[in-house]
Protein backbone atom coordinates (compact mmCIF):
# COMPACT_ATOMS: atom_id res chain seq x y z
CA UNK A 1 0.00 0.00 0.00
CA UNK A 2 2.90 2.29 -0.64
CA UNK A 3 2.03 5.82 -1.67
CA UNK A 4 4.23 5.73 -4.69
CA UNK A 5 3.74 8.15 -7.50
CA UNK A 6 1.40 6.90 -10.23
CA UNK A 7 1.25 3.46 -8.67
CA UNK A 8 -1.31 1.47 -10.62
CA UNK A 9 -2.20 -2.19 -10.79
CA UNK A 10 -0.68 -4.26 -13.54
CA UNK A 11 -2.88 -5.76 -16.26
CA UNK A 12 -2.60 -9.12 -14.52
CA UNK A 13 -4.34 -7.62 -11.48
CA UNK A 14 -7.13 -6.25 -13.71
CA UNK A 15 -7.74 -9.62 -15.34
CA UNK A 16 -7.69 -11.43 -11.98
CA UNK A 17 -10.21 -8.97 -10.52
CA UNK A 18 -12.38 -9.40 -13.62
CA UNK A 19 -12.23 -13.18 -13.20
CA UNK A 20 -13.19 -12.88 -9.52
CA UNK A 21 -16.14 -10.63 -10.46
CA UNK A 22 -17.37 -13.13 -13.07
CA UNK A 23 -17.07 -16.01 -10.58
CA UNK A 24 -18.93 -13.92 -8.00
CA UNK A 25 -21.73 -13.19 -10.47
CA UNK A 26 -22.12 -16.86 -11.48
CA UNK A 27 -22.08 -17.84 -7.80
CA UNK A 28 -24.77 -15.26 -6.91
CA UNK A 29 -26.93 -16.56 -9.74
CA UNK A 30 -26.55 -20.28 -8.97
CA UNK A 31 -26.86 -19.99 -5.19
CA UNK A 32 -30.11 -18.02 -5.56
CA UNK A 33 -31.86 -21.19 -6.78
CA UNK A 34 -30.76 -23.29 -3.79
CA UNK A 35 -32.97 -22.95 -0.75
CA UNK A 36 -30.84 -21.88 2.20
CA UNK A 37 -33.61 -20.15 4.11
CA UNK A 38 -32.58 -16.84 5.66
CA UNK A 39 -29.02 -17.35 4.42
CA UNK A 40 -29.95 -16.66 0.77
CA UNK A 41 -30.04 -12.85 0.98
CA UNK A 42 -27.07 -12.88 3.37
CA UNK A 43 -24.92 -14.81 0.87
CA UNK A 44 -26.14 -12.68 -2.07
CA UNK A 45 -25.24 -9.45 -0.27
CA UNK A 46 -21.93 -10.79 1.01
CA UNK A 47 -20.89 -11.63 -2.57
CA UNK A 48 -22.15 -8.23 -3.76
CA UNK A 49 -20.13 -6.43 -1.08
CA UNK A 50 -17.01 -8.46 -1.95
CA UNK A 51 -17.43 -7.59 -5.64
CA UNK A 52 -17.98 -3.90 -4.85
CA UNK A 53 -14.88 -3.89 -2.63
CA UNK A 54 -12.79 -5.45 -5.40
CA UNK A 55 -14.00 -2.84 -7.92
CA UNK A 56 -13.29 0.03 -5.48
CA UNK A 57 -9.87 -1.25 -4.43
CA UNK A 58 -8.46 -2.17 -7.84
CA UNK A 59 -10.52 -0.79 -10.72
CA UNK A 60 -10.92 2.51 -8.86
CA UNK A 61 -7.31 2.36 -7.60
CA UNK A 62 -8.12 2.93 -3.93
CA UNK A 63 -5.56 0.32 -2.90
CA UNK A 64 -2.94 2.66 -4.37
CA UNK A 65 -4.43 6.01 -3.30
CA UNK A 66 -3.61 8.50 -0.61
CA UNK A 67 -5.03 8.33 2.90
CA UNK A 68 -7.25 11.34 2.16
CA UNK A 69 -9.04 9.48 -0.63
CA UNK A 70 -9.38 6.35 1.50
CA UNK A 71 -10.90 8.31 4.39
CA UNK A 72 -13.30 10.04 1.97
CA UNK A 73 -14.67 6.70 0.81
CA UNK A 74 -14.82 5.30 4.32
CA UNK A 75 -16.85 8.36 5.32
CA UNK A 76 -19.26 7.74 2.44
CA UNK A 77 -19.77 4.09 3.36
CA UNK A 78 -20.20 5.02 7.02
CA UNK A 79 -22.83 7.63 6.17
CA UNK A 80 -24.69 5.15 3.96
CA UNK A 81 -24.73 2.65 6.84
CA UNK A 82 -26.17 5.35 9.13
CA UNK A 83 -28.90 6.01 6.58
CA UNK A 84 -29.84 2.34 6.27
CA UNK A 85 -29.39 1.08 9.84
CA UNK A 86 -31.03 4.03 11.61
CA UNK A 87 -33.98 3.92 9.18
CA UNK A 88 -34.38 0.20 9.77
CA UNK A 89 -34.12 0.45 13.57
CA UNK A 90 -37.19 2.67 13.32
CA UNK A 91 -39.24 0.65 10.83
CA UNK A 92 -38.34 -2.80 12.15
CA UNK A 93 -39.27 -1.95 15.72
CA UNK A 94 -42.58 -0.20 15.12
CA UNK A 95 -45.47 -1.84 16.93
CA UNK A 96 -43.25 -3.82 19.28
CA UNK A 97 -44.16 -1.63 22.22
CA UNK A 98 -47.91 -1.28 22.56
CA UNK A 99 -49.09 2.23 23.38
CA UNK A 100 -50.48 2.59 26.89
Amino acid at each position, binding site marked *: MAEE*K*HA*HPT*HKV*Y*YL*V*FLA*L*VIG*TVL*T*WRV*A*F*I*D*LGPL*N*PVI*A*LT*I*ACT*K*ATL*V*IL*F*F*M*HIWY*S*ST*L*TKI*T*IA*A*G*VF*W*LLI*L*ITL*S*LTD*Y*LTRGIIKPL
Partner: protein
Amino acid sequence: MSHSPTTIPEHHPALVHQFDSMEQQREASTFGMWVFLLTEIMMFGGLFAAYLIYRIKYYDAFVAGSTSIDVTWGFVNTLVLIGSSLTMALAVSAAQRGARRGAQLFIVLTMILGTVFLGIKGIEYHQKYVEHHIPGGIFGRFDAVSNYPGQEPNIAEEVAKEKERVEKLSPEAAEQASKQIAKQTEIFFCFYFAMTGLHALHMIIGLILMTWLLVQVQRLNIGPEYYTPVELSGLYWHFVDIVWIYLFPLLYLINRTHAK
Protein backbone atom coordinates in the same frame (compact mmCIF):
# COMPACT_ATOMS: atom_id res chain seq x y z
CA MET B 1 8.08 6.10 -25.62
CA SER B 2 7.87 9.15 -27.83
CA HIS B 3 5.26 11.74 -27.43
CA SER B 4 5.13 15.33 -28.55
CA PRO B 5 8.24 17.49 -28.12
CA THR B 6 6.70 19.44 -25.20
CA THR B 7 7.86 16.97 -22.54
CA ILE B 8 9.16 18.56 -19.33
CA PRO B 9 9.00 22.25 -20.07
CA GLU B 10 8.86 24.71 -17.15
CA HIS B 11 5.70 22.95 -16.11
CA HIS B 12 3.17 20.64 -17.71
CA PRO B 13 0.67 22.51 -19.96
CA ALA B 14 -2.26 20.92 -18.10
CA LEU B 15 -1.12 22.29 -14.72
CA VAL B 16 -3.42 25.11 -13.62
CA HIS B 17 -1.95 28.00 -11.65
CA GLN B 18 -3.47 27.26 -8.21
CA PHE B 19 -1.55 23.99 -7.90
CA ASP B 20 2.15 23.54 -7.16
CA SER B 21 2.56 20.23 -8.93
CA MET B 22 0.79 17.74 -11.14
CA GLU B 23 0.72 15.37 -8.18
CA GLN B 24 -1.15 17.89 -6.04
CA GLN B 25 -3.54 18.70 -8.88
CA ARG B 26 -4.34 15.03 -9.45
CA GLU B 27 -4.95 14.51 -5.75
CA ALA B 28 -7.39 17.44 -5.66
CA SER B 29 -9.22 16.19 -8.77
CA THR B 30 -9.55 12.67 -7.38
CA PHE B 31 -10.82 14.02 -4.07
CA GLY B 32 -13.37 16.21 -5.85
CA MET B 33 -14.60 13.30 -7.96
CA TRP B 34 -15.03 11.11 -4.89
CA VAL B 35 -16.99 13.80 -3.08
CA PHE B 36 -19.31 13.90 -6.09
CA LEU B 37 -19.58 10.11 -6.03
CA LEU B 38 -20.49 10.26 -2.32
CA THR B 39 -23.51 12.44 -3.19
CA GLU B 40 -24.40 9.76 -5.76
CA ILE B 41 -24.08 7.07 -3.09
CA MET B 42 -26.49 9.00 -0.89
CA MET B 43 -28.98 9.43 -3.77
CA PHE B 44 -29.01 5.72 -4.60
CA GLY B 45 -28.73 4.96 -0.87
CA GLY B 46 -32.06 6.66 -0.21
CA LEU B 47 -33.69 4.41 -2.80
CA PHE B 48 -31.99 1.31 -1.40
CA ALA B 49 -33.14 2.16 2.15
CA ALA B 50 -36.74 2.71 1.03
CA TYR B 51 -36.58 -0.51 -0.99
CA LEU B 52 -35.37 -2.49 2.07
CA ILE B 53 -38.14 -1.14 4.29
CA TYR B 54 -40.87 -2.08 1.79
CA ARG B 55 -39.26 -5.43 1.02
CA ILE B 56 -39.45 -6.37 4.70
CA LYS B 57 -43.01 -5.05 5.00
CA TYR B 58 -44.45 -6.62 1.81
CA TYR B 59 -42.12 -9.59 1.45
CA ASP B 60 -44.52 -11.99 -0.37
CA ALA B 61 -45.55 -9.38 -2.91
CA PHE B 62 -41.90 -8.45 -3.52
CA VAL B 63 -41.03 -12.11 -4.10
CA ALA B 64 -43.88 -12.38 -6.60
CA GLY B 65 -42.74 -9.27 -8.44
CA SER B 66 -39.08 -10.28 -8.38
CA THR B 67 -39.80 -13.80 -9.65
CA SER B 68 -41.71 -12.40 -12.64
CA ILE B 69 -38.51 -10.74 -13.95
CA ASP B 70 -36.41 -12.80 -16.35
CA VAL B 71 -33.27 -13.58 -14.31
CA THR B 72 -31.21 -14.68 -17.35
CA TRP B 73 -31.21 -11.17 -18.83
CA GLY B 74 -30.21 -9.71 -15.49
CA PHE B 75 -27.37 -12.21 -15.19
CA VAL B 76 -26.12 -11.54 -18.74
CA ASN B 77 -26.33 -7.80 -18.14
CA THR B 78 -24.24 -8.12 -14.97
CA LEU B 79 -21.51 -9.86 -16.98
CA VAL B 80 -21.73 -7.21 -19.72
CA LEU B 81 -21.32 -4.42 -17.17
CA ILE B 82 -18.41 -6.14 -15.42
CA GLY B 83 -16.78 -6.54 -18.83
CA SER B 84 -17.24 -2.84 -19.52
CA SER B 85 -15.59 -2.06 -16.18
CA LEU B 86 -12.58 -4.14 -17.24
CA THR B 87 -12.27 -2.33 -20.59
CA MET B 88 -12.62 1.01 -18.76
CA ALA B 89 -9.83 0.05 -16.35
CA LEU B 90 -7.68 -0.91 -19.35
CA ALA B 91 -8.51 2.44 -21.03
CA VAL B 92 -7.25 4.29 -17.95
CA SER B 93 -4.13 2.13 -17.92
CA ALA B 94 -3.50 2.86 -21.62
CA ALA B 95 -4.02 6.58 -21.07
CA GLN B 96 -1.58 6.50 -18.19
CA ARG B 97 1.03 4.92 -20.43
CA GLY B 98 0.38 7.62 -23.02
CA ALA B 99 -1.00 5.10 -25.51
CA ARG B 100 -3.61 7.31 -27.15
CA ARG B 101 -4.86 4.74 -29.69
CA GLY B 102 -5.15 2.04 -27.05
CA ALA B 103 -7.08 4.33 -24.74
CA GLN B 104 -9.51 5.23 -27.53
CA LEU B 105 -9.97 1.58 -28.49
CA PHE B 106 -10.84 0.59 -24.92
CA ILE B 107 -13.17 3.60 -24.51
CA VAL B 108 -15.03 2.53 -27.67
CA LEU B 109 -15.23 -1.05 -26.35
CA THR B 110 -16.63 0.29 -23.08
CA MET B 111 -19.24 2.28 -25.01
CA ILE B 112 -20.23 -0.80 -27.04
CA LEU B 113 -20.70 -2.87 -23.88
CA GLY B 114 -22.63 0.00 -22.26
CA THR B 115 -24.93 0.15 -25.29
CA VAL B 116 -25.46 -3.64 -25.16
CA PHE B 117 -26.43 -3.25 -21.51
CA LEU B 118 -29.00 -0.57 -22.35
CA GLY B 119 -30.33 -2.68 -25.24
CA ILE B 120 -30.91 -5.66 -22.95
CA LYS B 121 -32.52 -3.33 -20.42
CA GLY B 122 -34.84 -2.21 -23.23
CA ILE B 123 -35.82 -5.84 -23.96
CA GLU B 124 -36.57 -6.34 -20.25
CA TYR B 125 -38.64 -3.16 -20.04
CA HIS B 126 -40.57 -4.26 -23.13
CA GLN B 127 -41.39 -7.61 -21.49
CA LYS B 128 -42.69 -5.77 -18.44
CA TYR B 129 -44.74 -3.50 -20.69
CA VAL B 130 -46.32 -6.47 -22.48
CA GLU B 131 -47.09 -8.12 -19.14
CA HIS B 132 -48.79 -4.96 -17.79
CA HIS B 133 -46.25 -4.75 -14.99
CA ILE B 134 -45.46 -1.08 -15.43
CA PRO B 135 -46.95 0.74 -12.41
CA GLY B 136 -49.97 2.93 -12.92
CA GLY B 137 -52.66 2.71 -15.57
CA ILE B 138 -53.41 -0.89 -16.48
CA PHE B 139 -51.01 -2.48 -13.98
CA GLY B 140 -52.14 -5.92 -12.85
CA ARG B 141 -54.43 -6.98 -15.67
CA PHE B 142 -52.78 -10.31 -15.26
CA ASP B 143 -55.00 -12.18 -17.73
CA ALA B 144 -52.84 -10.57 -20.41
CA VAL B 145 -49.82 -12.48 -19.12
CA SER B 146 -50.82 -15.76 -20.75
CA ASN B 147 -50.61 -14.03 -24.14
CA TYR B 148 -46.90 -13.70 -23.67
CA PRO B 149 -45.24 -17.09 -24.23
CA GLY B 150 -42.40 -18.23 -22.03
CA GLN B 151 -43.34 -16.04 -19.10
CA GLU B 152 -44.85 -17.54 -15.99
CA PRO B 153 -47.82 -15.59 -14.66
CA ASN B 154 -46.25 -15.54 -11.21
CA ILE B 155 -48.04 -12.52 -9.87
CA ALA B 156 -51.42 -13.86 -10.98
CA GLU B 157 -50.50 -17.14 -9.27
CA GLU B 158 -49.48 -15.33 -6.13
CA VAL B 159 -52.73 -13.37 -6.09
CA ALA B 160 -54.77 -16.54 -6.64
CA LYS B 161 -52.86 -18.39 -3.93
CA GLU B 162 -53.40 -15.62 -1.42
CA LYS B 163 -57.08 -15.49 -2.37
CA GLU B 164 -57.47 -19.23 -1.87
CA ARG B 165 -55.75 -19.08 1.49
CA VAL B 166 -57.97 -16.33 2.84
CA GLU B 167 -61.11 -17.66 1.17
CA LYS B 168 -61.20 -20.39 3.79
CA LEU B 169 -61.55 -17.67 6.39
CA SER B 170 -64.10 -15.42 4.69
CA PRO B 171 -64.94 -14.46 1.09
CA GLU B 172 -64.82 -10.71 1.73
CA ALA B 173 -61.41 -11.00 3.31
CA ALA B 174 -60.23 -12.99 0.28
CA GLU B 175 -61.29 -10.24 -2.11
CA GLN B 176 -59.52 -7.72 0.08
CA ALA B 177 -56.31 -9.74 0.33
CA SER B 178 -55.94 -10.37 -3.40
CA LYS B 179 -56.40 -6.67 -4.10
CA GLN B 180 -53.83 -5.86 -1.46
CA ILE B 181 -51.09 -8.14 -2.76
CA ALA B 182 -51.60 -6.77 -6.29
CA LYS B 183 -51.17 -3.25 -4.91
CA GLN B 184 -48.04 -4.26 -3.01
CA THR B 185 -46.55 -5.88 -6.10
CA GLU B 186 -47.13 -2.61 -7.90
CA ILE B 187 -44.97 -0.96 -5.22
CA PHE B 188 -42.22 -3.47 -6.01
CA PHE B 189 -42.35 -2.44 -9.65
CA CYS B 190 -42.24 1.25 -8.68
CA PHE B 191 -38.90 0.47 -7.03
CA TYR B 192 -37.79 -1.71 -9.93
CA PHE B 193 -38.38 1.03 -12.49
CA ALA B 194 -37.14 3.89 -10.31
CA MET B 195 -33.88 2.12 -9.43
CA THR B 196 -33.07 0.51 -12.77
CA GLY B 197 -34.30 3.69 -14.51
CA LEU B 198 -32.01 5.94 -12.49
CA HIS B 199 -29.19 3.48 -13.12
CA ALA B 200 -29.92 3.44 -16.88
CA LEU B 201 -29.93 7.26 -16.86
CA HIS B 202 -26.44 7.12 -15.34
CA MET B 203 -25.39 4.74 -18.09
CA ILE B 204 -26.67 7.17 -20.75
CA ILE B 205 -24.79 10.03 -19.06
CA GLY B 206 -21.76 7.71 -18.98
CA LEU B 207 -22.00 7.13 -22.73
CA ILE B 208 -22.14 10.90 -23.35
CA LEU B 209 -19.12 11.26 -21.06
CA MET B 210 -17.24 8.61 -23.06
CA THR B 211 -17.98 10.42 -26.34
CA TRP B 212 -16.53 13.60 -24.84
CA LEU B 213 -13.60 11.59 -23.54
CA LEU B 214 -12.74 10.27 -27.01
CA VAL B 215 -12.32 13.87 -28.16
CA GLN B 216 -10.31 14.77 -25.05
CA VAL B 217 -7.90 11.87 -25.53
CA GLN B 218 -7.41 13.01 -29.12
CA ARG B 219 -6.82 16.66 -28.17
CA LEU B 220 -4.88 16.45 -24.92
CA ASN B 221 -1.33 15.35 -24.40
CA ILE B 222 -2.33 12.26 -22.41
CA GLY B 223 0.48 10.50 -20.57
CA PRO B 224 1.87 9.48 -17.19
CA GLU B 225 1.87 13.10 -15.99
CA TYR B 226 -1.70 13.89 -16.96
CA TYR B 227 -4.57 11.49 -17.64
CA THR B 228 -7.11 12.91 -15.16
CA PRO B 229 -10.14 13.08 -17.54
CA VAL B 230 -9.81 9.35 -18.31
CA GLU B 231 -9.15 8.44 -14.68
CA LEU B 232 -12.17 10.35 -13.34
CA SER B 233 -14.53 9.15 -16.08
CA GLY B 234 -13.36 5.66 -15.13
CA LEU B 235 -14.30 6.29 -11.50
CA TYR B 236 -17.78 7.32 -12.62
CA TRP B 237 -18.18 4.25 -14.82
CA HIS B 238 -17.05 1.86 -12.07
CA PHE B 239 -19.43 3.53 -9.63
CA VAL B 240 -22.35 2.85 -11.97
CA ASP B 241 -21.12 -0.75 -12.20
CA ILE B 242 -21.13 -1.07 -8.39
CA VAL B 243 -24.73 0.16 -8.21
CA TRP B 244 -25.71 -2.63 -10.60
CA ILE B 245 -23.75 -5.20 -8.57
CA TYR B 246 -26.25 -4.46 -5.75
CA LEU B 247 -29.32 -4.03 -7.95
CA PHE B 248 -28.97 -7.48 -9.52
CA PRO B 249 -29.35 -9.61 -6.36
CA LEU B 250 -31.76 -7.16 -4.69
CA LEU B 251 -34.26 -6.89 -7.55
CA TYR B 252 -33.89 -10.17 -9.47
CA LEU B 253 -33.06 -12.68 -6.76
CA ILE B 254 -35.26 -11.91 -3.75
CA ASN B 255 -36.42 -15.53 -3.60
CA ARG B 256 -35.99 -17.93 -6.50
CA THR B 257 -36.15 -21.17 -4.54
CA HIS B 258 -39.90 -21.83 -4.93
CA ALA B 259 -39.76 -23.18 -1.41
CA LYS B 260 -42.55 -21.16 0.03
